[in-house]
Every structure is written in structure tokens, then in C-alpha cells.
């Protein structure tokens, strides 16, 4: 088993990652761990299973396989609660999980997980503080800050999630622009939508059916306010009936 363990670490350390080889090494080690006569003491076995769990998580990110990422990350967390002395990578894992939840817009899970991290770590630990800052920027609408963080992420594995978020952000920005601008030059649109060249932007604009007038996009701010207020009779009737029923019960 010791050999399988070493093999796994060696294959994993190679750059660029050979997914198939890592998977094979993982499988080998898992079978070795499963068999009763592993020939190792408990401590080494625990260490080996730690590597199995952690590498599974990271591999899932490399493969962009987020369903299995969700599974593995939970396994890792269980492992950390059971073997707290081997949890030196815990913050990286928690940080990745936070990024994952953020990227997939599972905000309530995000906050539940964040609450479990001590306050001190939230600001001082780079693994944790990155997703925390991104979340704040997202909520405030400071989208450019999210892009800026991509340049100084604590671990290369974070970038996958930031890329996913970038799509979401672009959608958000686009809908904000539609509602708040009357017109916008193509050049500014490229900057605001965080594209590096006009072609990409133009294609995106086409997908969203923006109207191009010369070199400006024109947006129609819909005049919803002027619409006369209709008497919503159905709603009023249901409300009144509800009151009547309740009053009936009281009297």
C-alpha cells in the first residue's frame, strides 16, 4: 500500500496533470486501503486516506466535474472531523467549497458554511478571505473587484470557480445596463462587460438582442410608470373574503 500511496503522490505532483493516471493511482490506493492486510499502521493508513480524499476533490475540479466535487468535499469534511490532527489543508478545502457554493449561487449554504469558520480566519486566512471578499463585492455590485481578485488567488484551483462566476457576473451587468442606461458606446460596453475585444462583446450583445445605432447601443427604458393602475378586482375580492372568513370565526 505504501507503494500505491507514493505512486499517487508522484502522479499527482506531475504537471500538467494526467487525469487518467491520477485516477488509476487513486483507484489502486483505494483498493489497497480497503483490503484488510494493508501492512501499515493506523497512522499511515489515515494519512493515505487523507490524500485520497483531498486529491479526489482537486481532481474533480480539474475535470470540471462538480457533482462529484460536492460528494468528495463532504467526505473530506467528515474525515477532518474524525481525524482533526491531519487537517492542515482544511482551510484550502473550506475555501474551495465556499467558492463552489458561491459559483453555483447556493448562498444560504455559503453562509452556513462560513459561520462555521472562526471570525479570525475569515479575515486573515487567504483561502477563506478570498471567497468572503468576492461575495461582498458581488452583493454590492462591485463586479470589477471580482475580476481583480482573479489575479491574486491563493490557489490555482480557485480560478475555475471564478471563471464560472464571470459568466454570472456578465449576465448581471448586462441586465443592469439594460435597465439603467439610455445609450452606451460600444467601446464602453466592452469595458463594462469585461471583454478584452469588441468582437466578443458584439457577439454577446447580439445574443442579448441589443440594438446597435451607429456605434452606440440604444436601450429603451420602458415607461412602465405611466401605465394606468388597473383595479385588480380578483385580488381585492379574495382579500375581502379572507377578512370576512376570519371575522366570522371571531364573532
Amino acid at each position, binding site marked *: 500500500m505504501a507503494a500505491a500511496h507514493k505512486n499517487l503522490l508522484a502522479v499527482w505532483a506531475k504537471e500538467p496533470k494526467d487525469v487518467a493516471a491520477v485516477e488509476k493511482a487513486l483507484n489502486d490506493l483505494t483498493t489497497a486501503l480497503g483490503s484488510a492486510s494493508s501492512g501499515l499502521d493506523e497512522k499511515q493508513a489515515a494519512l493515505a486516506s487523507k490524500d485520497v480524499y483531498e486529491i479526489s476533490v482537486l481532481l474533480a475540479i480539474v475535470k470540471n466535474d462538480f457533482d462529484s466535487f460536492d460528494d468528495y468535499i463532504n467526505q473530506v469534511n467528515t474525515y477532518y472531523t474524525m481525524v482533526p490532527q491531519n487537517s492542515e489543508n482544511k482551510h484550502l478545502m473550506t475555501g474551495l467549497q465556499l467558492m463552489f457554493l458561491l459559483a453555483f449561487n447556493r448562498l444560504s449554504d455559503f453562509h452556513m458554511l462560513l459561520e462555521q469558520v472562526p471570525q479570525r480566519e475569515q479575515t486573515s486566512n487567504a483561502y477563506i478571505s478570498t471567497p468572503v471578499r468576492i461575495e*461582498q463585492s458581488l452583493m*454590492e455590485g462591485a*463586479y*470589477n473587484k471580482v475580476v481583480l481578485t482573479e489575479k491574486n488567488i491563493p490557489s490555482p484551483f480557485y480560478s475555475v470557480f471564478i471563471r464560472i462566476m464571470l459568466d454570472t457576473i456578465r449576465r448581471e451587468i448586462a441586465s443592469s445596463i439594460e435597465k439603467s*442606461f439610455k445609450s452606451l458606446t460600444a467601446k464602453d460596453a466592452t469595458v463594462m462587460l469585461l471583454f478584452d475585444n469588441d468582437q466578443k462583446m458584439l457577439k454577446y450583445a447580439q445574443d442579448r438582442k441589443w440594438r446597435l445605432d451607429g456605434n452606440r447601443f440604444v436601450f429603451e427604458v420602458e415607461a412602465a410608470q405611466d401605465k394606468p*393602475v388597473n383595479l385588480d378586482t380578483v385580488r381585492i375580492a379574495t382579500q375581502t373574503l379572507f377578512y370576512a372568513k376570519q371575522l366570522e370565526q371571531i364573532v
Partner: protein
Amino acid sequence: MTPKAGEAAVEKMEVDPVKPAAEPAKDENAIAVENIKDQLQSLDKGEEHLVARVLHVLPKTRRQLNDAVLHKLCTSGLISHDSAFFDNLLKFVKYTPPAVIDEPMDTTSSKTKSPRKGVRPVYTSIESDCYLRLLVLIHLFAQKKYQDALLLGEQQLTAIQNTDKRTLDGFAAKTLYFLCVIHEREGKLFEIRGVLNSRLRTATLRHFNESQAVLICWLLRCYLINRQYQSAAHLVSKVAFPENATNNDLARYMYYQGRIKALQLDYNSAAGYFLQAQRKAPQEGAIGFKQTVQKWVVVIGLLQGEIPERNVFRQPIYRKCLAQYLDLTHAVRLGDIAKFNHVLEQHRKVFEADDTLTLIVRLRQNVIKTAIKQISLAYSRIYIKDIAKKLLMDNETETEYIVAKAIADDAIDAVITSDVRDGPRYMQSSETADIYRTSEPQDHFDTRIRYCLELHNQAVKALRYPPKKKIAVESIEQAREREQQELEFAKELADEDEDDF
């Protein structure tokens, strides 16, 4: 048995009000012993509502407990079914009565009790056993003899489990409560969560409502203290809180639920739960609980964009503990980011201790939104650059995104535009529409009516009725007794258990 117990109660009734006036010097211990003996007698009837009554005055009884009282109770000639019972209890009450002083006390009580004792020995019921054990347990707890208390508590629970009688549920609940408090004081609460879970399962299966309520509350507390929010959320989604639980337990449950909802960003339900927790909390006392809940109410209100009313902060019990939150409210109301940051820095420790820090950090976006709203109200047009200056942001692009988002979120009614091509952009606010021409007032009126109706319905549900049986056949004497009891009961309700929190 019943008439005799009734007679005893009448005796007590007539004597009780006179006692303090006639013999002010009389030893308080003796009164306590008398009271507890009376309680034991009513317990011997083995009726559920009598058990509830005795437990209801527990906080009052608790204050009268001391070594002498307990020792006296254990040695006063009551005989248990379990012969080793009192010997066992005495092991916990380490007290040797000073013989001389004890003598006069004995004569006063033996005047009424000894003849009857002579005729036939009084066997205590299981209820009484449990009650005595609980009293000793509480006493041990008060003296911080935690190890002994834990041991006794375990004995109590085993005894209750073995007899499996419905009336004992109240005692089990109280015992569990104290066991949990002790575990928490010793910092070992998390270790017993397995035990609590299995007990909850049993209690739920057998419909032991009181135990169930206590257990659910403590499990939630255990999870929240140890930051196991996911488990707590799971628990809440799985259990059905017993409907006839006491108000105190209900208040706690509401509070914990509010905390969980607040974490899940569901501020509306969180606010609802905190409001109910506030309403269910006892009028008098439980100040600590009310203060904590009030803090959460303020924070959640702010997160929802509501500014709490000024008079909340003025009430004497809240004035001091909410001082930091008042500063915070000022900052949010003014949309003053510099002040908000300052408050956050200054009171960080306090907020962290209150577990509200993460929520307060989330307030930042509200502050920004308020600020933008105020700018849009004050200026009909303003350059993005100037907004950035006002919001203390060094980056115009960022400000533009934020303003655009505010417009998209319908926080403000404005457009971003520019006069000349590629000129500097500015934000132009639209005219504010007359809100009374929309259906907004109707909606508000509707929510208020619903709130009132809901309040009424809950009040109706909260009404309690006395048990119906036996009313037809009671004699005049019994009727008198019952009325008196109800009077006392009402009085006790008024000063409901403040120690409990």
C-alpha cells in the same frame, strides 16, 4: 386518599396567609419543609395537572432549598416503595443536623403530622420520589457539585424510564434541562448530543411532550454553540415541536429557529420567529433572553431595510446592551459608510461575542444602497465621479456598476446618461411617482390586517382551560379549595419563572 389530601390542603390554606404575620420570626426552613410536604401530598394523587402545578412553582421552591430543608425532608418519616431511596438521597445531601436547634422545629410540624403517622405510615408515590430527587438535584446544581448532580440525574432518568408513567414526563423534562445546563457549564455539551438525540427519539415516539420540547431546544442550542448550523437546520426541518409545550420552551425554539433562518438569508421568516420569541417570553424577568432577542431583531430589521424605532433603545433593560446597536443603526440610517466602518471596527468584539458579526458585515450593502437612495433623492442629476466621492470609493467604474445594480434592483428610480457623446456620465433621477396612486397603500393595509388577525388567532390558541372532570361532583369544600388554588395559580403565573432563563 383524596379527601384526606383535600383536608390537608384546606388546613394549609387557612394557616398559610396567617403564618408570616403571626410568627415573623419562624424559621423559614420550616415553612419550606411544610410547603414541600404539601406539594408531595398533592403529587401522591398522581394527576397530571397537579404535577404541572408543582413544577410551576419550582422556581419559587428552588429559592427556599438548602441542606437543612432537604435533610429534614429525607428523614421526616416518609417511606418510599424503594427502601434504599432515602438512604441514597442522603448520600448526596451531606448534612448533619445540629440536634438542639432542630428540636423546636420538629415539634411544630409533628403537632399536625405525628398522629397520622402513628396510625399508618405514609408511602410516597413515584411522583414524590422523582420530585424529591429533582429538588436534591437542583440543590446540588446550585452548589456547583456537578459530578454528584450528574450522577443523581442519571439515576432519576433511569428510574423514570423504568416506571414509564405519563405523569413523570414533567420531571424528566426538568431533570434533562438541568443535566444539559451542567454539561454546558462544563463545556461538554457537544459530547452528549448522541444521548440527547436518542432520548428525543424515545420521547417523540411516546409523545412525552415536555421532554421533547426541552430536548429539541437543547439539541439546537448544542448545534448552534458548536457552529453545526447544517445539523441544526436539518433538525428543525425534521422535528415537529410539540404544540402544548410551555411558553418558555416555545420562545427558545422560536429564537433558535430565527437564528438559523437568519443564517440562511431568509430574513423575513427570521424576523417573524424573533418576533414570536419576544412575544412568548415571560413578561417579567428573563431579561437576558429578551435582550439577546432584541439585538437580533434590530440586526435583522436593519438587514431588511427597516430602521427600528427609537423607543426600543430607550427602554431601561435595553438601553445599555443595545448601545452599540444604536450606533450601528445611526450609520445605516444615514447611509454613512465611513461611520459604519468605524462602528464595525470599534465594536467588533461586542458583535463577535453576540454572534451577530457576520450578519452585520452583510449590512454594508444596505448602507451603500441607502446612501445611493439618498443621493438620488437629493440630486436630480449628479456625475458618477461625484457619487464615487460621496461613497468614499476610489474607483468610478465600481461606482457605476453599483449604481447600475441599484437601478436594476429597483432601489432607486433613475437612469445613467450623458449629455455629449463619450462625455462624463451622470445619474439622472426620475420624478418620484405619487405612491398613493398605486396599490401600495392597499398592500400595506392588507399586511397590517393579516398581522392583527394572526395575533388574535394565536391569542385564542394560547388560551388554557382547566381540566373538566370532577367538577360536577365536588363538594362545597372542594369547590372552595379549587377556587383558592386557581387564585394562587394565577398569582404564580404572574411571576412566572424568571430563573428559568
